[in-house]
């Protein structure tokens, strides 16, 4: 069973990702509401895949991604972005993310991105 960490300040987005993945047997091991909390949970939980929103208060997704990459260069991270965040997406690509999910998204897109990330890791 693959273990997933969700980092997103929007409760509905966390709810959507959880609702898409849990019925398929993925275990949601944690939900963080900003980058700083996400880094702490990543260290403690060591998830197989992390979904990471870009725009968040306190510490955004790009800064969290840099921190996580320093500690875990091969971590499977899927960035969650909006259509108009092209510059941020480019920065995230340079930092080496597994995939992007562009908001608004449907359940199939979340499942596909997570499954691909897990397949690549194995």
């Amino acid at each position, binding site marked *: 069973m693959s273990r997933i960490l969700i980092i997103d300040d*929007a*409760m*509905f*987005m966390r*709810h959507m990702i959880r609702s898409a993945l849990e019925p398929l047997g993925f275990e949601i091991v944690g939900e963080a509401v900003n980058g700083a909390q996400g880094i702490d949970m990543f260290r403690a939980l060591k998830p197989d895949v992390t979904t990471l929103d870009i725009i968040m208060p306190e510490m955004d997704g790009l800064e969290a991604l840099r921190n996580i990459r320093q500690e875990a260069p091969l971590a499977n991270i899927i960035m969650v972005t909006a259509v*108009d965040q092209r510059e941020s997406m480019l920065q995230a690509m340079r930092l080496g993310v597994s995939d992007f999910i562009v*908001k*608004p998204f*449907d359940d199939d897109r979340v499942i596909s991105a997570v499954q691909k990330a897990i397949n690549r890791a194995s």
Partner: protein
Amino acid sequence: MKIIEEIMHNVFSAADGNLNRLTAGRMRVKYEGCQYSSLEEITSLDGGEEDIVSGVGMTLMASPTLMMLMVFTPEARLGAARILLGEGGLSNAELVDSVLQEIGNIFGSALANGLAKYLDEQVKTSPPEVAMDMAGSMLASIVGSVPDLGDEILLLNMRLETGDSDSACGIHIFFDEKLREKIDALPSVISSE
């Protein structure tokens, strides 16, 4: 007015596509037109109503200033939450507010990008904020926060279609004098390019 109508048709088409994607086709928006309204008129109309509504406010451009307030009637709030959360999620007010924020994000992004394209301005959106209050109070709060606000705001009328029912929604657009002048100076017809 014609140019704004054309821009708004494009904006709502983009928003409807994203709403369709988010809800797997279970929620659509029907644009019903727009009109300028004087601040005095808006305040007297909305401030006189006692109904508590939900509003999603966000900044779309910082300089010049462009802000929006999307107002959901109690029926629209309930309909949107039911579609996206199911009956089980309706009791969680924070989660319902988060649904409205996401819908506000969809319309805010479409409006910001649509208007920025024609006005040649930079989009700078803020995270959407949700409040529950009388519409007049929310409008007054935004009016007080926009520097150099003109005498009129733009009111967009729409209906949110959620399954078997649909509910009225409105988006109030606030802009400063500089932006209003740019809107008024737009050509009367959008180029086909």
